[in-house]
């Protein structure tokens, strides 16, 4: 049997007005992209609670992708700006917690950019494949060997 390739799990939060519509276009246009991405539709990238990102990591995601409207295009005026502020600050926390920058990616993708959804999903899948799985510690008595604790 050939050596198993690591398949990262990516949870994607897409805003309904731009990026989620773009992901539909990707499909309609028959542009294949990595099946590692699980898309979740939000009304706006500004709805993204940083807790969603951490919960995704805790429940086994190796990366989180956030897609929103380009600056100036937010359906709700400034939701995407709030998303960007939150994600940049969250990234600082993740960095301090030993979680690489590549595991959280923010992209502005308009409804017409189906090809960009394809490119971003493929790129991120490859980046995470190189990085390997995210192994979070669990609160057990001896989680020194993180891998062993996870396996229990």
């Amino acid at each position, binding site marked *: 049997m050939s050596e198993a390739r690591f398949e990262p799990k990516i949870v994607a939060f897409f805003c309904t007005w731009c990026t989620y519509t773009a992901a539909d276009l990707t499909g309609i246009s028959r542009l294949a992209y990595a099946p590692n991405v699980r898309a979740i539709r939000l009304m706006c990238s500004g709805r993204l609670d940083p807790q969603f990102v951490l919960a995704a990591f805790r429940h086994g995601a190796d990366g989180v992708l956030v897609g929103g409207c380009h600056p100036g295009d937010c359906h709700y005026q400034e939701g995407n700006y709030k998303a960007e502020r939150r994600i940049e600050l*969250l990234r600082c926390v993740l960095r301090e917690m030993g979680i690489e920058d590549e595991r959280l990616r923010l992209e502005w993708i308009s409804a017409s950019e189906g090809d960009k959804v394809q490119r971003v999903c493929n790129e991120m899948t490859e980046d995470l494949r190189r990085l390997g799985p995210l192994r979070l510690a669990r609160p057990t008595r001896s989680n020194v060997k993180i891998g062993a604790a996870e396996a229990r």
Partner: protein
Amino acid sequence: MTKPKVAFYWCASCGGCEEAVVDLGEDLLKIVELVDVVFWPVALDFKRADVEALNDGELVAAFINGAVRTSEQEEMVELLRRKSGAVVALGSCAVSGGIPGLANLYEREAILDAVYREATSLVNDEGTLPAEESRVAEGVLSLPAFDASVRTLDQVVDVDYYLPGCPPPVGLIASAVTALVEGTLPDKGAVLAPDRALCSECPRAVTKPDKLLVDAFRRPHEVNIDPELCLLAQGLICMGPATRAGCVAACIGGNMPCTGCMGPTSSVADYGAKALSAIASIISANDEGEIVARIAEIVDPVGTFYRYSLPASLLHHRVATRVEEPVP
């Protein structure tokens, strides 16, 4: 009629929660009229054997403060859990990890090295580390094991009630003990503090602008703090919007911003994530470069947003340095 029995115990903590119990002052005498304190290492000379001699469930409640880091603490809280009808996590360390929980930013080995090998005040040429067992001429000496991470009380034993705060407000302790004696405690799992944000009881709330935006973050020592104006409006990082009420804004009354010791309200799972969300959203900049520059003004984001709750957070501990693993 015999009085109900209670116990107080401390784990990884500073003693401030014990101080808060003593701060009940003369009210402590009223409490002692209502209950028998049968175990309280900081104040009374009872031993572990006295607790072991109790019947299971004989204590009406154990008030346990401090996070759990050692095998000794784990054994003691498991013993007290068996002997108690209710276990109350007293203070931020027991509730969510507290200040000792920030040790979860470091690996166990790095902590031992820093404390026993690298500290400048040390003389330890042989690089000796505390061992769980050491053989000496007189026999074998033992020490408690130092766990891989700091845990909250409810990550070790079942907890019935939570009383957060660093230390918990004296009034909340008094009402918890009263409710316990009168049998009027809420459902299991409740936090014995109001379930609303601190801003709702902050005397400065009236000065909070309708649209709160911050051009620059400042630290308390860098500015003359206006004693009337909303601290967020002055660019100080105040955790009021994300933090549970119940402290009657004591720090803010002392002209210092809230640091979040009361933890989140019941609608929030991860305090730090919610707090950073609130703070990030009031940054006035829209341009990526400016946003990054504003955020760079926030010194030590984990220590700011998870000051009291890193072990309870969804991430729990810094991700360990990667080790090569065989492909399964």
